[in-house]
Structure formats: C-alpha cells, structure tokens
C-alpha cells in the first residue's frame, strides 16, 4: 500500500505534504488542531478503508449485484413450456408466451420430471399446458395452466410474471370471443374500474424513486448522526487520552474549548466525507440499477452505449427528487442536515468517550446510547402523518424528519422550522455537556 506511505519504514509519503502544510496554516488554535487531527486520521489506513473506501465500493455492488442476478436483460430466465395438448387453444397460448420475449423458452411435447428440471437448475419455471386444455376451452369451461417454480428464486418469480402477462392477454381474447355472440363487450365482465389518485402536499405526482428516496435519504442522514465520524472521533478523544498525548497538549496556552472546537471541525470533516461518499455510492448504485432496467431507453443517432447509460443515470437521479422541488435546495438542505447530524453524533461520542477509561469501553457506551437514539428514527418511514409531529421533537430523529420534510413536504415551513429548531437545540445541549466533560482532570488522570 504505497499510497499511505511505507508504513514498514515509518516514513510518510503521500500525506507528508499535508503534514508539512502545517507550517503555513493560520495560527488559530482550532485550525491547528483540526489540521493535526485530519493529518493523523488520514494515515490510519484501516479506518479509512473501513469507513470510507469499503462503503463506496460495497454499497453500489450490494445494490447492483442482486439486480444483475435477476435482471432479465443480463441472463433471461429459462422457461420450459410442456405442451401435453396439441389443440388450437394450446398452440395459441404457446405462441403468445413465445411472443412475450425476455425469457429463453424451451418447448417440449412429452412429459417431463418437473421437480428434476427446477431443482437441477435446468429451468427457472416449467409451464405445463395439460391434456384437455383446448377441449375444455372450446366447451366453454375453464382450463388450467400449471406453473412449477422455485419459491426461493427471484428469477422464478420474474418468469411467472412474464408468462402470466401472456396468459392474461390470451384470456382476454377468449373472453371477448365468448362475449361477442352475446353482443357484450369485455366491460360487461369487468364492471369495476379502479382509479388511483396520489394525494401529496405539493399536489404533484411522485415517482416510485421519490418514495424510495424519501425513505432512504433521511435514514442515511440519521445514520451519519448515529455513527458520527465513528472511529475517527473516538480516536480523537479516547485515543488522545489512551496514548497520553493530552497531557502535553494541555500545557500549551490554548483553551480547552479551542482544542475541542478543532476536534469537532476535524470530526465534521470526516462525517461529511463518510456521509457524502455513502450517498454518492448509493446514487451510483441506483444508476447501475437504472442502467440495467433501461432496455426501453434506446437513444438513437450517434449515442453510444455509455451515452445511453448516462441518460438513464441522469433520469434515475432526477427522479429521486420530486417534481417542482428545487434540486439545489434539496442538496443544500441535505448538507446542512448532514452537518447537524455529524456534529450531533460526534458530540455524543465526545460525551461517552469522556466517561470511558479505554477506547473499548467508549465503544460499548456509545453502542448503547446510539441504540436508544436510533429507535424512533426507524419509525420515520412507517408512521402516519399525524404521528410525525412528535418525531420532529425527538433527538436525532428530528434530523431525519428534516430531510424527509424537505423531500416530501417542502412547503410546510412550520414543520421544517420545528425539526430544524429541535435539532439545533439538542445539538447545543450536547455540545455544552461535551465541552464540560472534555479535559476534566479525572478524565485525564482518572
């Protein structure tokens, strides 16, 4: 790992410049402290890889791989069509299924061992058109189409929905034909029409992406609040104490509050880095998913495959934000919420670290505290609107609610102010308490 310096020799390569930049930075204590913390943290290879690099790589993969696996585009499901009836209706259904496309179809006319085919992995779905199929239909009775599938396989389900689309089409045709002599239309047997109207506070329709986004984004910002700068932050407080560096530091003519401010600055930097990279990675994942599903999005005229991908990507990203909502506003709001979340999480880390004698103890306290804080946040996507009010007043959850309101109900200024104000008040309280605890004598030499 040349990138982070030859650790073996203890010489620093890449971040050396960052360290020597210290000569030139302003003398304001918080800046000096933040410079030092960031320089040191960037050399903590394991933590950087675990908290920044791995998520950036794993999130898009985790999102894209399942899609790639079940996507009909990459590997179409194998459907075996077993024709035990050689009548006209059976032939008609068979050709409808084969016209459906999107699957690789194998047609057989003799009996097959359906279980062996499915469990042996030779087929994702076996469709059997039994004997007497045509006869039943011509005499005005019902006829069955039998599906043999693997309930654990996503591909089997995909295959069923494809085949069943073809079956429905044929069924409609048959019904129409049966009704025609009676001078009736299809409407006669479908007397009820279901109509759906989305009711949103903006009065506009939202795409499924917006719905997913409005569930995901608040959670992500909330998670930043839960984890803060995580190991980095623990290291800056508990680590400083465990390595006994705090003693020398406190002999410099710098206020403890300035030192803490510098540490918060560095922690917020890492919270934002982790948060933004997670959100970027998720958007990248969405783009990969969108690209996979963009079969219909064929752009003609000199646009290569990557052009198609980009168009799909842009479309996917755009659909994340509800129509009529200013994307810049959402972005700014999310960044503000992330800073709030990062500071809140880090203040909790500073507090819990102050009670702990060791790094490990600090981690345990932190786990318990965060568990309590995260509970109400889990409820955000599920609660009905009247119950959202109290959530705007719950610590940490208020930040998730702020992001949710920004996406879902940007016109509701009162709600935005409420969740913003309560987030800021909790943050202030936590910052004050953490400042009181930081650098206590018993904490340093306890």
């Amino acid at each position, binding site marked *: 790992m040349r990138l982070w310096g030859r650790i073996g020799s203890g010489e620093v390569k890449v971040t050396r410049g960052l360290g020597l930049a210290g000569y030139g930075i302003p003398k304001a204590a918080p800046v000096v402290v933040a410079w*030092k913390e960031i320089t040191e943290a960037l050399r903590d290879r394991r933590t950087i890889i675990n908290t920044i690099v791995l998520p950036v790589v794993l999130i898009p993969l985790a999102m894209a791989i399942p899609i790639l696996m079940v996507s009909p585009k990459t590997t179409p499901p194998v459907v075996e069509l077993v024709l035990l009836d050689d009548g006209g209706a059976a032939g008609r259904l068979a050709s409808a299924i084969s016209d459906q496309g999107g699957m690789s179809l194998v047609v057989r006319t003799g009996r097959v061992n359906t279980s062996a085919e499915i469990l042996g992995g030779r087929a994702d779905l076996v469709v059997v058109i039994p004997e007497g199929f045509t006869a039943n239909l011509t005499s005005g009775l019902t006829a069955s189409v039998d599906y043999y599938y693997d309930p654990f396989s996503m591909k089997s389900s995909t295959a069923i929905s494809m085949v069943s689309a073809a079956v429905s089409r044929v069924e409609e045709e048959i019904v129409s034909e049966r009704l025609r002599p009676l001078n009736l239309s299809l409407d006669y047997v479908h007397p009820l029409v279901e109509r759906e109207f989305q009711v949103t506070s903006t009065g506009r329709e939202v795409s499924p992406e917006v719905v997913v986004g409005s569930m995901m984004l608040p959670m992500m910002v909330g998670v930043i609040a839960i984890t803060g700068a995580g190991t980095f932050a623990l290291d800056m407080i508990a680590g400083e104490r465990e390595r006994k560096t705090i003693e020398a530091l406190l002999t410099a003519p710098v206020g403890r509050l300035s030192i803490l401010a510098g540490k918060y600055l560095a922690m917020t930097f890492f919270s934002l880095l982790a948060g933004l990279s997670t959100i970027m990675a998720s958007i990248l994942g969405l783009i990969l998913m969108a690209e996979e599903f963009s079969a219909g999005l064929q752009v003609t005229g000199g646009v290569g495959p990557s052009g198609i991908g980009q168009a799909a990507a842009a479309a996917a990203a755009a659909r994340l934000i509800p129509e009529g909502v200013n994307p810049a506003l959402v972005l700014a709001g999310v960044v503000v919420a992330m800073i709030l979340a990062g500071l809140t999480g880090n203040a909790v880390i500073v507090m819990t670290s102050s009670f702990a004698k060791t790094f490990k103890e600090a981690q345990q306290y932190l786990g318990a505290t965060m568990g309590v804080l995260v509970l109400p946040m889990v409820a955000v996507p599920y609660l009905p609107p009247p119950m959202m009010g109290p959530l705007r007043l719950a610590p940490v959850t208020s930040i998730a609610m702020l992001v949710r309101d920004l996406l879902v109900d940007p016109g509701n200024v009162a709600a935005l102010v409420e969740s913003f104000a309560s987030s800021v008040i909790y943050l202030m309280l936590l910052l004050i308490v953490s400042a009181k605890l930081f650098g206590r004598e018993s904490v340093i030499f306890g």
Partner: protein
Amino acid sequence: MPAAVATVGLTKAFGDVVAVDGVSFEVEEGSVFGFLGPNGAGKTTTLRMIYGVLRPDSGDAVVMGRSVTRDPRGVREVIGVMPEDTGLYPRLTAEENLIYFGKLRGMEESELRERVRDLLTRLSLWEKRFTLADRLSKGMRAKLTFARAVLHEPPVLLLDEPTSGVDVMSAREIRGMMREHAEAGKTVVLSTHNMWEVQKLCEAVAVINRGKVVYRGGVEDLERLTGLREFEEIFVRLVRGEITA
C-alpha cells in the same frame, strides 16, 4: 531577585494516598533546579500541579509571577514542558510533532521552520524528520520531546526525567542545552534519578520523600553540610532520614 518558580504548600491526594503533602520550594531565575526523590515520592504529581494539568487540593505554584490556580493560561504561556510520558503523536512525523506545538504556541512560520531545523539537527534527528514518532527509538522520542519543550524558548522549562533512556551522546547534548538555557537567563526545573547529573548540572535541589520535602537548598551547601562528596550517598541518607537539613 524574585523566584522564577515558587510553590507554597502544594498538596494533592488521590483518594487516601496523599501524593504531595505541603511542598514548598523556590527556584531562582536563570538556574538549573533538581527535583529528586525515590519512585512514588510525588515528583511527577508536583510538576503536574506546577504546569497546570492537576489542580492542587491546597497550596499554589507561582511561575514568573503568575499563579497557576488563578491564571493557569498565563503560566502555560511562559513554560515548556516535558511530561513523564512523552505524549508524542504516533502518526505524526518527528517534524510534524514540533510544527503542531509551535503553531499552538503561535510561532511565526519562518521562525518555526528555522527553529525546528536547528533543534532536530543539534539533537541528531534531522534525518528522522519524516519518520513517524512511533517508529523512533525510545531515546529519539525523549530527544524529540525535549525539543518540543524548548521549541518556543520559554522562560521556564519543566522537565520530568528528561534524560531517562537517552544514550550518552544525546544525554550530553540535552544537558548542554539545559545549561545554555540557564546561561541565557532562563530557568530549568528537572526531576531526575541521576545523581551524577544533579551534581554536574544543578545549582540547587529539592529532595522529596513520600510527598514531603526533606531537603531544599544548594547542592554545594549539602556537600559541605554532610561532609560527603558523593551526592548519591547524601541522597540515600536523606531519604532514609539519617540526615536532616
């Protein structure tokens, strides 16, 4: 001449253990002062109260006219400290460890660069300037910690066992720099277990045992008083309570 460092009845207990019990002494400006005592005598605890990271239960320390209980920040402005634990940042290089403290002390960029280069060169650490502190040998770390304490040329140096674990050449260099510091009219307070060092370096000492001062005064006075030439012998008898000053 006013004392550079004066402690008055410094007392500190940890639970039932009274680590420091009414310690009073004065250090003349421009001198090297030795602070001696067996393990657990309370040297480190006393120094910590003087440099302001431990609050005394009672008593006070005054450094260059500033009281550590009333003006701790004022005290920190005039001292350079070498704690018992080096407190170097393991993932900062030798040079960066110095930059950090120079900046925190408000040193100007050009002054700081020059001083860092000068100190690292004198202490034979210049080739190691890009080496992470946790890859330095124990003696190198001690030298670097010493460099950090003198970086901003403070009026008062407070050093907790500055030469322990340091090789002959480097210890000599550090002692030379301590003497220079005093010759420039500044003050050095060091705790040490090295009796030879005390005899070579210190004008005056305070010997403490179980938190109490058992002797304070000039080294030469003590030699004259006891008729002993080996300081180690004097120290042993002081601690055993065989002689009192």
